[in-house]
C-alpha cells in the first residue's frame, strides 16, 4: 500500500527557509501570511497490504532514517 510521510521541523525550531518564503510572499503582495513552515513529503509504496502493519513499518523508518527526531516531527497518511 502507499503511504505519505510528512516531515517538518518541530514547532520550536526556527525554519530559515520558511521565513525566506514568507518574506517572498509578502514581496508579491500576499498580506497576512503569519508564518510559513517548509518540510518534505516522502511517498512510500510498500509491499505490505495490512494498513496497521504498513504504518507501523513507516513509523520505524521515520525513527531510524526519514526524520531526525532531534529537530523534526513526522506524520504518516495513507494515500
Amino acid at each position, binding site marked *: 500500500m502507499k503511504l505519505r510521510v510528512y516531515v517538518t*521541523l518541530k514547532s*520550536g*525550531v*526556527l525554519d*530559515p*527557509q520558511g521565513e*525566506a518564503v514568507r518574506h517572498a510572499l509578502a514581496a508579491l503582495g500576499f498580506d497576512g501570511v503569519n508564518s510559513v513552515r517548509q518540510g518534505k513529503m516522502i511517498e512510500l509504496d510498500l509491499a505490505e497490504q495490512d494498513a496497521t502493519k504498513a504504518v507501523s513499518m513507516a513509523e520505524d523508518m521515520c525513527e*531510524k*532514517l*526519514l526524520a*531526525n527526531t*532531534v*529537530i523534526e516531527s513526522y506524520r504518516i497518511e495513507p494515500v
Partner: protein
Amino acid sequence: MKAAVITFPGSNCDRDLALAFEGTGAQVRHVWHKDTALPAGIDIVGIPGGFSFGDYLRCGAIAARSPIARAVADFAGKGGHVLGVCNGFQVLVEMGLLPGALLRNANLKYICKPVGLRVETTDSAFTGGYRAGSTITIPIAHHDGNYNADAETVARLRGEGLVAFRYTDNPNGSVDDIAGVLSQNRRVLGMMPHPERAFGALHGGSDGRAMFDSLIGALTPA
C-alpha cells in the same frame, strides 16, 4: 598514531584531513564507506567534510547509516577518538554520537571564509595544544552549519564544559555561538570549521595545526 579517514561518495576533504594527520607524523589508512570494519590498531577516526551522498534527505543522514558508521559507533563506544569536521560533524550528530543537529544557515547562504573561534576548553586530546580562551582563525565552508539543540542540552553542554569552540562572530545562527562540541567522554569532537585547512603558510594560516599536534601527543604511546 594511526588514523583512519573515512571516504563516502561525495566526501571532498578526505585527502586534506589525511594530509593534516600525516603532516604531524601519523600513519593514515583510508577507509571506504562500504567497509564493515576499521583497520586494526587505529587510534583515531577522521570523518571528513564534503557532501556525503549529495546531502540527500538531510546532511550526513545517509552516511550515518552506512556500513562503516556501525564500526565507527562501536569504536567510539569502546572509548575511541573520533574527529568529525563539517560534513563529518553532521554525520556524527546524525549517528547520535554527539547531541543536537545542524540546520540550514540562518541567512540561507553558503558561507566560505575564515572565522574567529574561541577555544573554550583545553580538556581533550583535540584541544590540549591550545590556550584556553585564546582566539584562533579557522576557515568555514558550509551551508548547513547552524547548530541547534534544545535549551536543556545547551545548558548541559555549557555546564559540563563540552563546548570545544565558539564563534567570536556567529556566522550561521548557531545556538550559543557553538562551533564545535565534545561527547560526554570528551573523545568525540564535531566541528563545522576546518582545522585541516589551516595547517600551514600555504593555507594562509596554521591555527588548525595545534589540533593535530595535540592529538599525536595525546594518542601516541610514550
